[in-house]
């Protein structure tokens, strides 16, 4: 159970405070309700490029990092399909430095051509490091492109194409800021060694005078129901064949989301899980085999990803995966097998509560999803999952026409 308080400033900024006296530090987390799903299809990668620009100085402060480091702080940020999240930790007595920095960059950025030029290069190098210069690096963009035809989840956060980043102009960037960066489009969470009322007073002091901005509502095209099985193969210079089966699943506010999460755990979380025991250990077909959910706010993907042991045929491997998926439908999952994954989720929630920064991030993310209170309802949602529910959801999920398969074949390897 995580105790927190919530308060909304006049400009619409939602502020959440959580006290944790086991640390001498505080965390400040600012989550903006903008992710790669909010990008124009011809200008992808903007949300993430923008995250980089947020460190290039703001209207009143030429440099973001030095003043923070000067009070013993540390910071970073990440962009997902759904949100852009900035976080910092610092000794509690210097919290105002953190709030000064975060509020000023919400107020406005010091847009400069040089800053943009450099960060474009940095992001292009990031693109290469993550997607081009790694074996299997482009799997994730390929999977998304195959599974989504309409919804903006069809491109990856880094962008669909390097050229979108290369072509970004200062004007594009400015208009992106004023469309999405606003107090009324963000959640500020302060956690750690601080009293909630004090946190609210400081939030008012630093963020209270930032003007409310007109933020266009989100109107994303829904992904139409997939009606036909899709398959694509590519060949790359990798050591092993890879198979990726993706299925459309429910959005994060749906109760089925939690059922699907547990299905992925039953199949592949831990060395006692089904697919691991059967296909990795007993049959020795795969060197690696995982099932996971994408964790997106809008309807996301349930993916089974495997790398084959050399000599095993793609057909046999695919068939064996399907056999495991079908078993989820045909046979009831054992009570203790279900209890096991629920226990595991519950223990993980306790472990994650050790860290005040984790809690700040989670509170912000849930608030953006709809309500911070969801953070304390997780346990119950997982506990409500029954053996029958697992079967019904598996039935919905593992239909051939709901599946997109990427075969990632090895070309040659030395």
């Amino acid at each position, binding site marked *: 159970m995580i105790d927190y308080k919530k308060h909304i400033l006049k400009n619409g900024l939602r502020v959440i405070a959580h006290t944790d006296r086991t640390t001498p530090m505080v965390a400040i987390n600012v989550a903006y309700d903008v992710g790669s799903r909010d990008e124009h299809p011809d200008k992808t990668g903007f949300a993430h490029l923008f995250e980089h620009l947020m460190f290039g100085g703001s209207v009143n402060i030429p440099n973001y990092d030095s003043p923070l480091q000067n009070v013993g702080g540390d910071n970073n940020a990440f962009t997902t399909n759904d949100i852009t999240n900035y976080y910092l930790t610092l000794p509690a007595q210097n919290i105002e430095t953190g709030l000064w920095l975060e509020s000023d960059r919400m107020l406005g950025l010091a847009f400069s051509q040089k800053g943009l030029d450099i960060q474009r290069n940095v992001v292009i190098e990031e693109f290469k490091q993550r997607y081009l210069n790694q074996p299997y690096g482009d799997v994730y963009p390929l999977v998304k492109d195959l599974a989504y035809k309409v919804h903006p989840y069809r491109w990856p956060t880094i962008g669909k194409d390097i050229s979108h980043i290369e072509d970004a102009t200062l004007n594009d960037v400015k208009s992106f800021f004023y469309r999405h960066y606003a107090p009324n489009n963000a959640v500020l969470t302060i956690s750690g060694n601080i009293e909630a009322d004090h946190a609210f007073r400081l939030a008012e002091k630093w963020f209270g*005078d930032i003007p409310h901005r007109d933020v266009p509502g989100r109107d994303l095209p829904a992904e139409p129901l997939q009606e036909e099985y899709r398959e694509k193969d590519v060949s790359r210079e990798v050591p092993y064949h890879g198979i990726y089966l993706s299925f459309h699943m429910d959005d994060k506010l749906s109760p089925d989301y939690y059922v699907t999460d547990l299905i992925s755990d039953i199949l592949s979380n831990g060395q006692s899980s089904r697919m691991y025991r059967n296909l990795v250990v007993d049959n020795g077909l795969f060197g690696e085999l995982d099932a996971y959910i994408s964790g997106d706010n809008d309807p996301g993907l349930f993916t089974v990803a495997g790398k084959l042991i050399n000599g095993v045929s793609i057909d046999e491997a695919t068939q064996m995966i399907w056999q495991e998926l079908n078993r989820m439908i045909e046979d009831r999952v054992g009570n203790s097998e279900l209890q096991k994954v629920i226990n595991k989720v519950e*223990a993980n929630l306790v472990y994650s509560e050790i860290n005040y920064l984790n809690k700040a991030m989670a509170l912000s993310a849930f608030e953006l999803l709809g309500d911070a209170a969801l953070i304390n309802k997780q346990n119950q949602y997982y506990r409500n999952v029954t053996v029958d529910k697992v079967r019904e959801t598996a039935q919905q999920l593992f239909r051939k026409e709901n599946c997109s398969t990427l075969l990632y074949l090895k070309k040659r390897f030395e």
Partner: protein
Amino acid sequence: MINRKKAPKVNNLFDIDYLLPERWTLKNGIDVWGINAGSQELVKIDFMFDAGTWYQSKNLVAGMTNMFLNQGTERFSAQQIAEIFDFRGAYLQLSADQQFGNVTILTLNKYLPEILDVTADIIKRPVFPEKEVKTQIAKKRQTFIIENNKVKTMSQKKFSRVLFGEYHPYANTNTIGDYEKFGRADLVDFHSRQYTSSGCKIIVAGLYNESLKKWLETYFGEDEWGKTEASGQPEFEIVPSKQMEHFIEKNDAVQSAIRMGRLFPNRTHPDFFGLNILITLLGGFFGSRLMMNIREDKGYTYGIGAGIFTLPKAAYLSIMTEVGAGVCKSALDEIYKEISKLQNELVPAHELEIVRNYLLGETLRSFDGIFAMSGSLKTLVESDLDYSHYDNFVKTIRTIRAEDLMQLAQKYLQKDDIYEVVAGKQ
């Protein structure tokens, strides 16, 4: 109206108020360190053994012995062990480095007795069953090949061999052929010699009470286990490469991986703390010279870093980055320029102030929360140091002068002493 141009007042009150561990000894002589803290009903326990690559006579044996500990014991099959942990949401982490073989558990307190019972079996009575061993080797071999094809791994491995020589356990000389050169017998032998009560140390962190002590005694402390005769401390000579520049070609690389550095004084050397501050300034944080120049000014890379890596019997400097293949030469030139600046110009006062405060904040962070506290304690236990080590570091952070840093740069960062390894496109 607040004045946004002016930074809020800086409160320099970084007193590091760490909780000293309690220490006790089990009946059979095993030393235990305990940090009783936190607010969640859970504990993390590290069991450390003299079972790193230092003690192996064939490549991979230390790592594989460690990895197979949970693949079956006299009482439990691999499947049962996995079930016991998974059903309780507990974690078992196995890892071996150059010096130590580690078994780490994380569990809610309510499951502690059952988890300790099976952990004792894993440590004392693993059977290394043929079938499970074979599956895991195939798996590991696969990961090895994938990793080995990354420029980052290529440069890292080469760099370790350049620093320590082909026959030193701190060098990573593993090849794919090594996966065929050992068998079950090697693992059984290594286990019986190195996973012993006489070579075991235990670190506990979390909320615990007297019953934890009683259980540790019951499961690990009653009698001596493992081979009792001392297996001895092997000694190795470090033989660094005579050639300073090394290149590994990978023609399809779009980025080249760079590793630069040299052997450095160890934790106990008087220059260690000063060097730590110097290297932080060079490449140890986001505002470092290398990040500001090579990423934030030139845009050559997504990230660049420098750090001192300490092992119980050696330490080294490593500068690490992956840069666009076309700008590799320019990046190297810029790195040397930054080094020579440290040797020829005094660090400006405000920059030194930032580094001091950043490092004080980091030190605070390294004792923040039970996992961080237990990690910082483990570092001390590994190198046989006490908490005055951190006190002295804080003292140096507060007092070091720009002149000291320049002298250290001149003494330890001579271009001729620095190895340079590049993997990527020529």
